[in-house]
Structure formats: C-alpha cells, structure tokens
C-alpha cells in the first residue's frame, strides 16, 4: 500500500468519525448524515481499490481517470447544493408563516389585556 493511499484512508476515516460524532450529539439530522456517510464510503473504496477509478473511467469512455472523479464530484456537489436551496426556501416559508401567526396572536392577547 502506498503512502498516499494510507493518508487518503486516514483522512476519510477522520471525516466519517466527525460526521458520526455530529449525529451522536444530535446536531446533524440523519437524512443529511446519510449522504455524508455514503460519500465517505465511496472515498474509502477508491483509496483502497486504486484500479476502481480506471475501470470506471474505461467503462464510461473517459480518457483521463481523474477527470471522471472531478466531474462526478462536481455534479454531486451541485445536486446537493440545489437540495440545500430547496430546503432553505421551505424553511423560509415556514418561518414566515410562524412569524405571521405570532404577530396575529400577540395582537389578540394585547386586545384582551386592554379590555
């Protein structure tokens, strides 16, 4: 096993450990943790089994194997960012509804107290 492989595996394992620690603390919801654990798993597989990338690149007809890795990673990040934008939009809508409810309820209470 080459030095870079060992560094990559240690790095991936540290990342996995950090993700699991955040789940344990209850700071990361499991649905988001899933994608992070999955990507760490892919990284570990690629570090251990070095030929995997070349085989995949050959299958897809990509000449330089690292390009497949970059393209794949970029695409995955883009999709995940879109998912986050959707989540933020939903949260914003829910936040707005809550703020409005609160203002309407406060007015009701104020009116009762004044009467």
């Amino acid at each position: 096993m080459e030095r870079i492989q060992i560094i990559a595996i240690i790095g991936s394992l540290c990342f996995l450990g950090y993700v699991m620690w955040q789940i344990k603390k209850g700071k990361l919801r499991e649905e988001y943790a899933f994608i992070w654990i999955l990507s760490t798993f892919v990284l570990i597989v690629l570090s251990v089994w070095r030929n995997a990338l070349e085989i995949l690149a050959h299958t897809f007809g990509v000449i330089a194997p690292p390009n497949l890795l970059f393209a794949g990673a970029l695409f995955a990040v883009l999709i995940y960012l879109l998912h986050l934008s959707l989540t933020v939009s939903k949260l914003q809508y829910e936040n707005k509804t809550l703020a409005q409810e609160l203002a309407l309820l406060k007015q009701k209470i104020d009116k009762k107290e004044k009467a």
Partner: protein
Amino acid sequence: MNQTIRVAVIIPAYNEEASIASVVSAVHAASSDSIQLTPVVVNDCSKDSTKEIIGSLNCVALNLPINLGIGGAVQTGIKYAFDNGFDFCVQIDGDGQHPPQFIPVLEKELVANNWDVAIGSRYIEKEGFQSTFMRRTGIQYFQFLLKLITSENVTDSTSGMRMMNRKTMKLLYAYYPDEYPEPEALIIYNRNGLKFGEVPVQMNERMGGQSSIQGFGAVYYMFKVTIAIIFTYLRQ
C-alpha cells in the same frame, strides 16, 4: 337595508416613525358611516420607534418579530382582515404616498364593476405625483410584459394601492410573494380567474423613508419581477 361596509386598511410599515401617525389619522378622517375604515398597521420589525408609536395610536397593531419584507407584511394584514370578517381590505403605503380619501372611490368602482380587485393607478388621468422618468419606463415595460402574457392592460402594475374582496383575500392567504409582490400578484389574479381593473387616483411624494428600489436594486428588481411574472404564469 343599508349595512355598514367594513374595510381593513392595511398599512405595512418599516421604519416609518415620521409619517405613520398622520397616515393613520388620515384613514380615520376618510372613514364614514357607510364605509367604516379600520387601520391595520403591520410593523415589519422596524428598528426605529414605529412599534411604540402604533401602540399608542387608535389602530390594529400587528408587530412582526422578524423582518419579512413588504409581501410578508401585507400578507399578515390580509390574514388579519380575512380572519376578522372584513368585507374588503385595501393596502396603502406607510409613507403617505396613497391618500386614503380614494379608498371609498376604489370600493365603489370594485362593487359597480363586479371586480375582485381594484387597483389605484397614477397613470390613467396622469394627475398628482408621477414618479421619475426611469420608474415610468420600468412600469411601461411591465405594462407591455403583462399585456403580452395576460392580454390585460394595467397602466400602474407597481401600485401598492389595491382593494380586494374576500375571495381574493382567501387566495392570497395561501400564497403571496415576499419581495416586490405587486406585478406578480396581477398574474396570480389572472391565473385564478379573478376580475380586476384600475381606478384613477392621485398619489403624493413620500413624506419620509426611502424607496427600496434604486441603483443596483433597480436592475435586480426588473430581473426578479420578470422572472417571477413568467414563472407565476407557467405555474398551474
């Protein structure tokens, strides 16, 4: 049988301490036995003393805990008006641009034409404050765009002075755009089969506060509203 018509006058206010008191008293002055106007001030988490001022005024004070932007503030007022059984609600600006004496005129036209929404327009009789050349050009562009996709002719699509019936309130209760809602709302009316029309009104120059649309904001405004108009039209 002549029943009093109850109208909620929604006044969104963000840092309007200089003008809000006179706007509220102008609303009371325009109120009559046949049309009873209730000022509903929606304080959009102002940083100045708007909250304290409206607390001491004779009006319904709705204080939002976070800043929602003009659309979210107006929607809060619409929800209040719908939940409290008002016959109509009308939106006027908190900076004194919309004279409340035109509210009964809007109501009369809305009922007479069997509209769901009546929009106060500066550009039918071209009287009163006409805004700057750049703004008029922008408004003409929206007029063109709206005519293109809805075949309705709206001369003042950015006018916030709008009166609506309960059918419209119920629709906007569910969805109202957050930012720059006025032109987009016209498409929402059109897509939902609501009838609307314009009524000539005169507007004033703002008494205090600053427009949210200037400089780079104007470019963003045109872009965002164009996108919103097109996508709202495509949405079913």
